[in-house]
């Protein structure tokens, strides 16, 4: 029987932890162990979470249809690109100010690939100002792939993926400059944003561009809601990237996280009911030192 690599890795890790824990018990010094008994609940939760996600990824890989509801913001992206094409103006894609190790930037890169494919089909220029150096090669790859998959690799212009600055407000100032001077007709802002969100969204609004934004940084969402035409809220950002890419890994993780959410809803309801009746054991299980 063929055992999947991930399962093998899991078994090896379990054996390693077990040996390490047994040695620590034998030496009567648990502080040296890699296994922290106070965080068993975290381990159980993570193992369960990964198992569910791997299960759904495998299902998606086998071609099973996984339903995801349509997200309103997705139509807005197409509408924005269409408008820019009609006006003969560029599309501006801003991928946030965090590095590529942040999951929101990864989601933004996936959306960028799809936007690149879309604009390549319409021969619309795509401008991508970047804040973090490490994001530049990833963005270049995504845009290049997008143009190639639209059958127009020659239309890719490397100079349109530009590093601006790693400093938050210098980046915002640079992006504002692009908005004011190159006058993109569509501003797409996806990724992790902080205090610069309103500065950029407000400038984009003043130039009359159609704006679609999405972030999981809850403190910045209010600014996008007031200054943009469409806002993709929180986890919708990840769902958008999964929906657009149709990538089994992303679809599977989205379905998996939906199931985990359903379980969380169940735990939450049960916990609140038990707490109301003064039973606190269940809640205490979720406590982490």
């Amino acid at each position, binding site marked *: 029987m063929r055992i999947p690599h991930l399962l093998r890795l899991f078994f090896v890790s379990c054996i390693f932890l077990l040996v390490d824990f047994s040695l620590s018990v034998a030496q009567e010094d648990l502080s040296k162990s890699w296994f922290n008994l106070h965080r068993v*609940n*975290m381990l159980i*939760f*993570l193992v369960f*979470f990964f198992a569910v996600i791997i299960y759904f990824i495998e299902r998606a890989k086998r071609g099973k249809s996984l*339903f995801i*509801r349509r*997200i309103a913001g997705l139509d807005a992206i197409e509408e924005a690109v269409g408008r820019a094409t009609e006006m003969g103006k560029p599309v501006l894609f801003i991928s946030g100010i965090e*590095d*590529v*190790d*942040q*999951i929101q930037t*990864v989601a933004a890169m996936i959306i960028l690939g799809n936007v690149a494919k879309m604009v390549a089909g319409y021969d619309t220029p795509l401008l991508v100002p970047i804040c973090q150096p*490490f994001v*530049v*090669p*990833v963005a*270049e790859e995504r845009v290049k792939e997008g143009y190639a998959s639209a059958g127009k690799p020659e239309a890719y212009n490397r100079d349109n993926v530009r590093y*601006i*600055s*790693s*400093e938050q*407000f*210098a*980046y915002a*100032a*640079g992006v*504002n*400059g692009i908005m004011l*001077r190159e006058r993109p007709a569509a501003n797409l802002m996806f990724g992790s944003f902080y205090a610069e969100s309103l500065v950029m969204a407000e400038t984009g609004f003043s130039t009359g561009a159609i704006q679609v934004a999405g972030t999981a940084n*809850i*403190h910045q*969402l*209010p*600014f996008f*809601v*007031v200054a943009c035409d469409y806002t993709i*809220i929180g*986890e*919708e950002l990840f*769902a958008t990237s999964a929906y657009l890419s149709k990538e089994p890994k992303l679809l599977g993780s*989205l379905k998996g996280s*939906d199931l985990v*959410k*359903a379980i*969380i*809803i169940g*735990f*939450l*309801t049960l*916990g*609140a009911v038990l*707490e*109301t009746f003064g039973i606190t054991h*269940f*809640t205490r299980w*979720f*406590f*982490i030192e």
Partner: protein
Amino acid sequence: MDLLTIIGNTLALILTLCIFSFLYKDNPFYKFAEHLVVGVSAGYFAVLIYFTGFIPKVWDPVTKKNEWWYILPAILGIMTWTRFLKKWSWISRFSIAFYMGIAVGVSMPLDMQGRVIRQLSATMLPVHLMNLQGIWNLLIVLGVLCGLVYFFFSLEHKGVVGGAASVGIWILMIGFGAGFGLTVMGRVSLLADRIQFMREWYLMVIKGVTGG
């Protein structure tokens, strides 16, 4: 007050006014300040990373402590520069993959702990209709549940699910409204701070001119 401080503060004031001139419209003064901040920050970060990254984390351990294994991440870093060579640019993917893999691996349990389990534990509250706290708790629990339903992508927002999702989005919007107000207040305080700076500059100049 020494001359250098006066020159520095005057420059800061001029640049502040250059940026504020954007409120009228895009103009050469704003463009100058914008290009200056972008250029200076790029140069500043390059030097900063050299002195806070390369020197203490690569150069010093390798040359002073013989911890040669610090060369390995440095090699990964150098590999990213192959982006400039068309033929060898594929090598940079190894560095990016390594960086992303490590980052995701580290952040996964931390996010699960901070954003899921702790939040879950903090929301399991006793709900009573007999006292005000119990009613607030009920609102919190219901708000979180409806918010979670809104972010459920496997079902269409119709019927009961649709109703709960609508409540969820209302709760989110109320939260956004409160967040917006709070942040605007913070921004106003930043503006007040800048105006205070201008006032202090004015007083400083008057004092310098009158010798008072």
